[in-house]
């Protein structure tokens, strides 16, 4: 079920919590250039209205990004995009997704009874084939 009425949609059954979904959305905005470096991002209240969520939840999403040094706080002014935020996000996402895929590959090959040596061999062959 999607929430009606709000311009942005929260997926209530996603395994990532609402504040993480808000943080992800801001990250995507930074990657796309909608929130430039040293530019101001939405406040917890703007986010609350955009998503139709509690302002405290929205603040949690912003704080998460500030802990990850993607945003920084200017007292009384709000949250701003840190320098190098785009690279930080891309790096974080790359390592996250890639590691997940490797983990899945290893699990699957063990399930199929492929030895670790055979798997490494398969990866090498695949890499050579691409060159």
């Amino acid at each position, binding site marked *: 079920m999607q929430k009606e009425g709000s311009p942005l949609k929260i997926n209530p059954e996603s*395994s990532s919590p609402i504040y993480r979904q808000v943080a992800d959305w801001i990250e995507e905005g930074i990657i796309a250039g909608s929130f430039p470096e040293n530019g101001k991002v939405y406040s917890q209240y703007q986010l609350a209205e955009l998503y139709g969520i509690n302002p405290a*939840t929205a603040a949690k999403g912003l704080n998460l990004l500030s802990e990850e040094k993607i945003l920084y706080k200017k007292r009384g002014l709000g949250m701003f995009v840190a320098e190098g935020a785009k690279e930080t996000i891309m790096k974080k996402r790359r390592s996250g997704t890639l590691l997940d895929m490797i983990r899945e590959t290893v699990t699957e090959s063990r399930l199929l009874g492929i030895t670790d040596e055979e798997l490494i061999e398969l990866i090498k062959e695949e890499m050579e084939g691409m060159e």
Partner: protein
Amino acid sequence: MIQLEFEKAEKRFQGKTALRDLTLSLEGEKIVGLLGRNGAGKTTAMKLAAGFLKPTGGDVRAFGGPVFNSLLASANTIYLSEDTRFPYTLTLGGIIDELARAYPNFDRGLATRLMDYFTLPSFMKHASLSKGMRNTFNLIAGLTARCPLTLLDEPLNGMDAAVRKDLTSVLLKEFIEAPRLIVVSGHQLQGLEDLFEEVAIIDKGRLLIHEEADAFKERFKRISGKADAVGAATEGLRVLSRRQSLPGMEETVIEMEPGTALFAPSGAGLTVSSLSLNDAYIALTGGMEGGIDRVYADTARKVKP
């Protein structure tokens, strides 16, 4: 800071105990969902908080003392439900006038604009409104009164989806505009779930859970996959429901202890998803072993192949 405190609060009505031993403390400016099934004691708890009822045991306190018979508490508290009635002789406009006299923060201009938007003519009598219109008016009055303690008992009952959606936004905007302690009670959430910062669940007159809404939601997981793999992953955990999906496959809903993480080996072919707050709440309070299916399983019912 605003604080509403129930301490071992009990309310008996002629031999029937509506609330027994409720201890709950709500603090600060936030929106709290007070949830529970029909008959759990929500309305009694709300009316005790409003000072409409006197507890037969324990204490209900806010604004520095017991709320019952306190002028200070009643000047700073508003309670509205679908059963709230106003004098027959008053028009909606007249009610607004009276509320503006009673509550110093009442925003009359905003109340009038909202009434226009929801097509509630000020010359109408409250008693002649339909259920949905009456509740819309009550909610507008309850929010624009801007009381430090705002108690809304099943505020969205009987409204159509479009009005519900608009009023959900009004609730959020009002909270942002004038932060206060808003307690919303209900047996269903109807789209308000994302607005709650905390949930308090009462069951059979007692507090079952009081937790931050995000943390509460994250403790419930739906795990599906091969029956033995699901069984292994959920061993020793609190299983709320278990049902067969495809032959040999199973879907289980579990409740985890606060602060624990689920261990689901990625190779076991398990799908783990979160529950919406509403589903988590239903899974938790649905309580009856085996659910409605069990009632039917006992009858000699033949399911057509």
